[in-house]
């Protein structure tokens, strides 16, 4: 069966800053992510993986090339229309920083729902809290009253409350303990099963990527050096030396 990609990135250059201070973070990236696929972006710090993800989330207009998500073209140099954000949602790395400390969990989730004209807020908030395993007793708490794992569940609830087609995950478990990471990865697996959602998962951890993703791209110093399937990764069929270096560095846990 043939599908056209849901996310298409062609020759994308991404920059930081302006004029003389301009710094290029991503060079000529090409990606195609199929509907319902989970696609991994792997690389070390400064590889440009998170920068590229922020562009896909419509948070950074400083790029050129062609990016199409779900039939909508992102325009370089401009913030996307609000409707774009309903379809593309992001979960950030640090659950301690991604929730406003002065807002209750209720408000954090309600803000997005209100912006996109959802009705029946009470029922929706209760349902989404339930789905991320938090239950309504957390609803009127503040972020500082929650553990790291619970906060990341709230961040996931905020994203999926809008029923997006694309879920962008920026190292969503790297700030968490191993046992909490397992819980969050399980939650994300359930969400992918229950909702028709396409995701891009950024991580430096090949073991996590091998567990979660169908295919992946390896980035080094702003360039995508290799794209391969998770099966190839596991079978150690990596072609690029940097990928092999990453596999070695992750020890035995990433490959068998």
């Amino acid at each position, binding site marked *: 069966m043939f599908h056209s990609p849901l996310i298409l990135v062609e020759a994308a250059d991404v920059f930081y800053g302006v004029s003389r201070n301009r710094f290029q973070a991503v060079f000529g990236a090409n990606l195609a992510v199929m509907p319902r696929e989970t696609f991994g972006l792997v690389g070390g710090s400064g590889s440009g993986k998170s920068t590229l993800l*922020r562009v896909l989330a419509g948070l950074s207009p400083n790029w050129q090339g062609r990016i199409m998500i779900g039939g909508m073209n992102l325009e370089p140099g401009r913030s996307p229309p609000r409707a774009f954000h309903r379809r593309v*949602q992001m979960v950030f790395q640090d659950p301690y*920083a*991604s929730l*406003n400390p*002065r807002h*209750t969990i209720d408000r954090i989730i309600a803000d997005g729902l209100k912006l996109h004209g959802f009705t029946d807020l009470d029922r929706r908030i209760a349902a989404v809290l339930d789905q991320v395993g938090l239950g309504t007793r957390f609803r009127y*708490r503040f972020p500082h009253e929650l553990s790291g794992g619970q906060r990341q569940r709230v961040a996931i609830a*905020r994203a999926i409350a*809008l029923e997006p087609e694309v879920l962008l995950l920026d190292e969503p478990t790297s700030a968490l303990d191993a046992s909490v990471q397992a819980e969050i990865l399980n939650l994300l697996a359930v969400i992918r099963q229950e909702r028709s959602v396409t995701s891009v998962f950024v991580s430096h951890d090949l073991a996590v990527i091998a567990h979660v993703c169908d295919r992946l791209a390896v980035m080094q110093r702003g360039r995508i050096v290799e794209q391969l399937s998770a099966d190839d990764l596991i079978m150690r069929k990596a072609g690029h030396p940097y990928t092999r270096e990453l596999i070695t560095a992750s020890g035995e846990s990433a490959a068998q």
Partner: protein
Amino acid sequence: MIVASSPSLPEPVGTRFEPSSRTQARLVQLARALHRAARNPSTLAGSLIVLALVFAAILAPLLATHDPMAQDLAARLTPPGAAHWLGTDQLGRDLYSRLLYGAQPTLMIVVLVVALSAPFGVAIGLLAGYFGGWVEAVLMRVTDIVMAFPRLILALALVAVLQPGLVNAVIAIAITAWPPYARLARAETLSLRHSEFVEAARGLGMPSGQIITGQILPLCLSSAAIRATLDMAGIILTAAGLGFLGLGAQPPMAEWGAMIAAGRDHIFDAWWVAAVPGLAIVLVSLGFNLLGDGLRDVLDPKHHD
């Protein structure tokens, strides 16, 4: 070489009150803040002094023993005693009563100046910090220019142009008082602008105006409130300074600064005329400072939990 980090203590276990609605959640927050405030000695002392000032201003007609304007030249410069608790001035007016009535212009100046300058300054700082670029450059340069003038001198010049009087003193002080708020709010906004929760709000499609007012402003408010409280002491001093120089409240109105000025001629033979309003100014300034310090402990989220 070694960086201190606070230990991660085990989370407290046990039953806790679970709010079940937005209003309840807010009330719980308020109750906790009040509880913390009540346990903080400097907040407590500061708020008692400030409350005393507020009561003195409101209840002056009830508490005063004499008419503050009534002259009694036979009893001029009477030392503190049974008839006049704090003595009388050079026109025989009762200092205790004048002190109480003098709380009114003092309080009014403080409230009006903060109400005018703090919101303006915070708004400037938010806009500059959030948008950056030329918006920031223009707004912050203006702020720097205003800040470069010594406060009392600028207020003096303004009052001289606008004509002496209480209202003009308020306007003059307010014009000199906003830049610190702008700097404070800009600094806070800069550190919040790229924080993940602001990114997340943008990722929801939230417009800039709503991000500034809903996401960033609430986090700037507590430091602005602390700053305002600490600032009040300075405002009182500036107002008293203007009064002392005859550019604030006009006679025969009782105003602490003007009262000190009147007592200056008799400082060696009738010390109380200048000392009574002087002590009042010191005490009230101290009160606001204590309250501000205490609020910093109570409101600053870095200092608790």
